[in-house]
């Protein structure tokens, strides 16, 4: 009587689609003679260390902030959420550059304030910057899970005499690990695939080796190295898949009403990541803006960014549904889901090139907005899949059973019960894709319609040329538009609020 779950065919198609760029990489790599260069071993060590530290940092920042945004009642809650998620909209190379530029001997901070600061560089500096720009992955997935946990369990634990903090540690955290892990996975893959940050901060990682090859037109070697990087990706994917959750019914939603002083303290503690990741770069750019003036910025760039990213976010979430669904149905589905993560672990330029090859197979799509959106989706699908999956994973099957006994088909039960109850996860997923697409560069450059300029490409253009003043406006716009995008999506989440 075992039949294939309904989501399998769709998930299979999507997984296949996600695998296509990997096939291209394999084909490109087939020309390459060199399999592995033992000189890359230290580089490998650096890469793994960076990944590990990034994950630790992102979790340490992201999880407390998830609690802060999910459970603490305060005025302007949504604004806080937006500010704290905003680092995802800022390209991390920009952050790396400005942090490097501000800290250390002779840095901007020392010049303004006369206070010597330690330099941000090397392994620790890179990990810090990486964590600053990836913690929102963890924050968003964790927050979504926190919002659907039943608060009566904390109550039970407190009546058993456990303090609030300890209750959170023992009752909330253990049920949260799968969501934290889903976010951490994304942070890890980001750390693996990012080129700019370690390069600017002087850390020799795998992506640099790939980049050097790529720039020397050793595309096949770069593809081969990327495939090797995917071995690490597979390992990380495997580790993450071992974190499992216990399903439960969503229930009352917990909210804390801190005193004014407590609230101030919490807000003060929540501020540094935002200051470092967003305010500092913008301040630096604005000072340059004042020194040398701006030029060449067009509002159309902002619209292009927002439009393409929004489309990508929507498509990604829709495609994430069958994949996430399949992942919870069995081993095969789980595998399909894991495959969709590959696109996120390969360095952007290599992935971008692979997508060019792919796009050229469909000349009517090549260099159209549609292909760009497809590229975004292929790269960022895991952001949506992870969020949707963890939200669905935590949901007890009892409610679906109730719907089916009332005569709803699995599809209807999914649409009317599972979906609304996992909407938070979907919103989180859409938000992540949106923000990530806003800052995406290589694929935008390579695949967008000719002349299609976005905030990220413009920012890169002026940054790359050393005209930092021109970077101020697009930088601010990135943050502002990300904010609007988030507001739009969060208002969808609000409608499902079933708390008291």
């Amino acid at each position, binding site marked *: *009587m075992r039949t294939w779950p309904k989501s399998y065919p769709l998930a299979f198609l999507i997984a296949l689609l996600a695998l296509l760029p990997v096939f291209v990489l394999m084909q490109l790599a087939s020309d390459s003679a060199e399999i592995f260069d033992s000189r890359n071993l230290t580089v490998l060590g650096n890469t793994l260390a960076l990944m590990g530290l990034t994950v630790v940092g992102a979790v340490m920042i992201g999880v407390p902030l998830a609690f802060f945004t999910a459970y603490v009642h305060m005025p302007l809650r949504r604004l806080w959420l937006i500010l704290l998620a905003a680092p995802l909209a800022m390209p991390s190379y920009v952050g790396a550059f400005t942090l490097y530029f501000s800290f250390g001997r002779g840095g901007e901070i020392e010049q303004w304030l006369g206070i010597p600061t330690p330099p941000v560089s090397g392994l620790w500096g890179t990990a810090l910057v990486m964590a600053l720009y990836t913690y929102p992955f963890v924050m968003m997935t964790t927050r979504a899970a926190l919002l659907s946990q039943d608060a009566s369990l904390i109550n039970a634990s407190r009546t058993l005499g456990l303090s609030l903090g300890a209750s959170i540690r023992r009752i909330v955290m253990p049920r949260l690990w799968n969501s934290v892990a889903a976010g951490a996975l994304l942070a890890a893959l980001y750390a693996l695939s990012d080129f700019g940050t370690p390069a600017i901060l002087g850390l020799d990682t795998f992506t640099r080796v790939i980049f050097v090859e790529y720039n020397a037109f050793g595309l096949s070697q770069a593809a081969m190295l990327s495939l090797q990087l995917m071995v690490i990706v597979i390992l990380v994917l495997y580790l993450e898949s071992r974190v499992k959750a216990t399903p439960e*019914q969503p229930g009352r939603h917990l909210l804390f009403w801190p005193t004014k002083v407590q609230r101030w303290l919490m807000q003060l503690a929540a501020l540094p990541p935002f200051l470092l990741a967003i305010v500092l770069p913008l301040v630096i750019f604005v000072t340059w803006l004042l020194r040398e003036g701006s030029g060449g910025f067009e509002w159309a760039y902002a619209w292009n960014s927002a439009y393409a990213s929004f489309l990508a976010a929507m498509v990604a979430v829709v495609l994430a549904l069958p994949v996430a669904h399949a992942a919870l149905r069995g081993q095969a589905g789980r595998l399909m889901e894991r495959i969709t993560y590959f696109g996120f672990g390969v360095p952007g330029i290599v992935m971008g090139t692979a997508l060019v090859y792919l796009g050229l197979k469909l000349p009517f799509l090549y260099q159209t907005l549609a292909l760009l959106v497809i590229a975004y989706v292929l790269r960022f699908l895991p952001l949506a899949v992870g969020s949707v999956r963890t939200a669905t994973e935590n949901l007890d099957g009892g409610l679906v059973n109730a719907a089916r006994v*009332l005569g*709803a088909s699995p599809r209807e039960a999914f649409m009317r019960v599972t979906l609304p*109850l996992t909407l938070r996860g979907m919103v989180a997923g859409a938000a992540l894709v949106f923000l990530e697409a806003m800052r995406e560069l290589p694929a935008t450059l390579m695949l967008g319609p000719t002349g299609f300029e976005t905030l990220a490409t413009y920012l890169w253009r002026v940054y790359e040329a050393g005209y930092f003043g021109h970077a101020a406006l697009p930088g601010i716009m990135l943050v502002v538009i990300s904010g609007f995008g988030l507001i739009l999506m969060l208002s969808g989440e609000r409608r499902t609020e*079933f708390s008291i």
Partner: protein
Amino acid sequence: MLKVSNLSVSYSDVRVVDQLNLTLGEDEILMLIGPTGCGKTTVLRALAGLIPIQTGEISLSDWTASPQKHIAPEKRRVGMVFQDFALFPHLTVEQNVCFRLKDTTRADHWINLLGLEALRDAKPGRLSGGQKQRVALARTLAHAPSLVLLDEPLSNLDAALKDSLRWDIRHALKMAKVPAIWVTHDQDEALSVGDRIGILDKGQISQIDTPEQCFDKPQNRFVAHFLGEASFLPGQFSGENALTELGAAPIRQQPELTQGDVLFRPDDLSLHAVAEDGNGRIEWQRFEGESRLYAVTLDSGRLVKVRASHENAIAIGDRVAVNIATTHPLAVFG
């Protein structure tokens, strides 16, 4: 008409329901009772198609499910009130009740009848336990299924409401001519509402019969113990009489038995306080409103329970005389 034959259900390796057979007439109500964890909910889940079955066959008017041929829950037109309510937390009471209804008059009917009018727009999160249960009930009944499964539908309601609701539900089921299986832990409910009672023990049906038969002529000691208070005293049987330590008692003749245990219900015995002599001492007593239940340790060391008027309160430890007061024949076990 529901027909279940040789139904077995396992969770991983553990067989929870074992070779169960039952049939249910057109509009018959079967009360299913049994100790916790005996598999009642599992039986209902299997009938609703929520878990796969290992052996057997389930058939309702227009479908037949078997281990080979699973019928999806939504194709069975089986309604179920879940033990843990399973209300949709994101929908209001009204939306829950009207979940799949086009025409909401039946929903309104049940919302009214169950006193949920004022809570129409409330989300389940802010309902009390009993209110949730009523919503779950309304939701199932409003969807007009062709078989209704009720998993302890009234356990969280107060006695007065419970009392009136069970008649309302019975009435509605009879009016709609749908068969129902109703799991309960409430003996009064089991004995009074159902057309038949099924007593489930470790996944098997011990007895399935009318309430009167089950109570008066329990198949075995388990059933006797499970339905109502039961005390057993050994006796020598001769024809329609048994001789026990309390004297002679009329019994239901069982030719093949010459000795065994006689089943005494608390009202088959009477007791009165005595200054001296008597045949036992009060072990404990319990106030039940209109009556008092006494547990008496007979001089033989055996414990019997006797129900008496609430007016005469006998202190624990006092001596009493227990007599056989029944006029109808008692059940005996070998």
